[in-house]
């Protein structure tokens, strides 16, 4: 599974726990729109740190960096030079 698919799956899991069955696209905002909480953001951050070795202490953190599948894709390309 490529990183975009993995991130999509992760969001799917977070939404499922909250009984959120609304569809989403790669540009759907999750945190800035309030659809997911700051507690969910932490779960995602831990996932990104563990899975892709991102160190937010080093690169800085802003919720907009992880707000959508697209934003995370862009973050991963910048930080990890993935395709």
């Amino acid at each position, binding site marked *: 599974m490529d990183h975009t698919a993995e991130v999509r799956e992760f969001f799917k899991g977070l939404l499922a726990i909250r009984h959120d069955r609304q569809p989403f696209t790669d540009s759907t905002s999750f945190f800035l729109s309030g659809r997911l909480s700051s507690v969910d953001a932490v779960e995602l951050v831990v996932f990104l740190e563990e899975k892709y070795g991102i160190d937010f202490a080093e690169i800085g953190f*802003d919720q907009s960096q992880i707000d959508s599948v697209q934003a995370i894709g862009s973050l991963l390309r910048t930080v990890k030079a993935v395709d």
Partner: protein
Amino acid sequence: MNPESGEHLRRSRQQDAETTLSTHPGVLDAVVVVLEDQGSGDARLVAYAVPDDDYIGRVFATGEAERKRVQTWRKTFDLSQFGRQASLSKPGFNTAGWNSSYTRQPIPAEPMREWVELTVQELRTFHPQEILEVGCGTGLLLLRLARECKRYAGTDFSSAVLKKLRKQMEELGEDWSNVTLLERSAENFEGFAEDSFDTFILNSVAQHFPSLSYLLEVIQGAIRVVKPGGLIFIGDVRSLVLLELYAGSIELYQAPSSMSLGELRERVFHRIRSEEQLVVSPEFFLALRDRFPKVNRVEVHPRLGYFDNEMTRFRYNAILHLDKPQDGNLELPFLDCSEHRLALDSVAALLRSNPDFLAIKNVVNARIENDVEALALLARTEASKTVGELREQLERRLLLGIDPQKICALGQELGYRVDLSWATSRPDGGYDVVFRKIVDSARLVHQAITWPQADLDASQLARYANVPGLAVLREKLVQQLLDYLRQNLSPNKAPTELILLDALPMTPDGQVNIHKLPVPDTPTG
């Protein structure tokens, strides 16, 4: 197959499952129904249960789950310091991570400055000399109070936050030798001797605790280390009695005008169920007097401030005085504000007659009067009406309340010390107020007022708080209940689907209205 015997079998399966489910300690009420798939004709048993949230708190929010929530909040605070806002903040005023629930944007500097200054001002009235602050964060209080103290110990569980605080102290370049900073979680009082501080501060921290029992543990630790005559200041606590108003206020603010009230209602319920923070009723702190003999006086008052925001609307400070020498309890006759239809002008007129004291109860709180009305309208208006129509109705309302900050300013201007109280825990945020002519201000600080207050039950403290993260914890109960049904029923009798509801829908004659039960999306199992 004989249809009667088929029907009988079905009823017996339903009843067995229902009886079994009802015996589970986490279930308050239950019903089991048979749903038939319209296409295939297959029947399946679906269970509906009303959960006991206290049980969920006791069973699922402890141990490992509690530790995980603490770690999650620690990480949230670490992350708040890795951003631009923290890097750009001026020494002494790092408010990174303080976001408005209304706008989801950082709270502007001026309301934050007021919030900090008023808290510091209130603490200064007690002349603290030896302070322990748990959750000192980026030092909003510490950097202002430490200079005036003999000793200031600040603890915080976030290493990133403490790193920023140390950096600010260096930048400010003063003598901070009386300050000790320790990285540790809130319940850790290791190394602090009994009766060694005169003031314990826990400001805007309790909401990040995983449970009420964790808060209780921290308060127990505080009671041990604070000396007789000292105080425990628990500031900026989110009020449980106002949680529904808060949820309604936020959702109404964010809703587009075209949204139906039915959807708005659902969003308000969802926000309450999904609340991630610990929200506590003032009654909890008042009940501590019965739990801990060392606590002999408790005050709870709404947060003050001219800025209208979620802190000044829905939060309060609780002050626990320990073994405080009493200067006689002040028992005053309270005028009922609603009965006498008092407005700010009429309160001013009463004060201008120069009484030594004036006590008024049931003051309508102008800060949240609109939110109270919005929620009442939401409850009684047809679901098909829109948010836009609700807003129009609200605009036509005549507001009668008095702003807590304005009533304080009025009293102070006329030479009175003004104290407010939320000890009655009214669900509309109404408050009581006492004006005392200032003759000896130091004496007034120590004089206890007998406030009107709600009936308390110190043996049932759990009822005075929510269970943070309840929505996710309820999922754990669903799994436990399905396992329980499988273990206690034969395979063909155990429902494979279970839905939790806040209440079972009822018919006017008191039967469960099965037509109003939600239908599960897809068959499973």
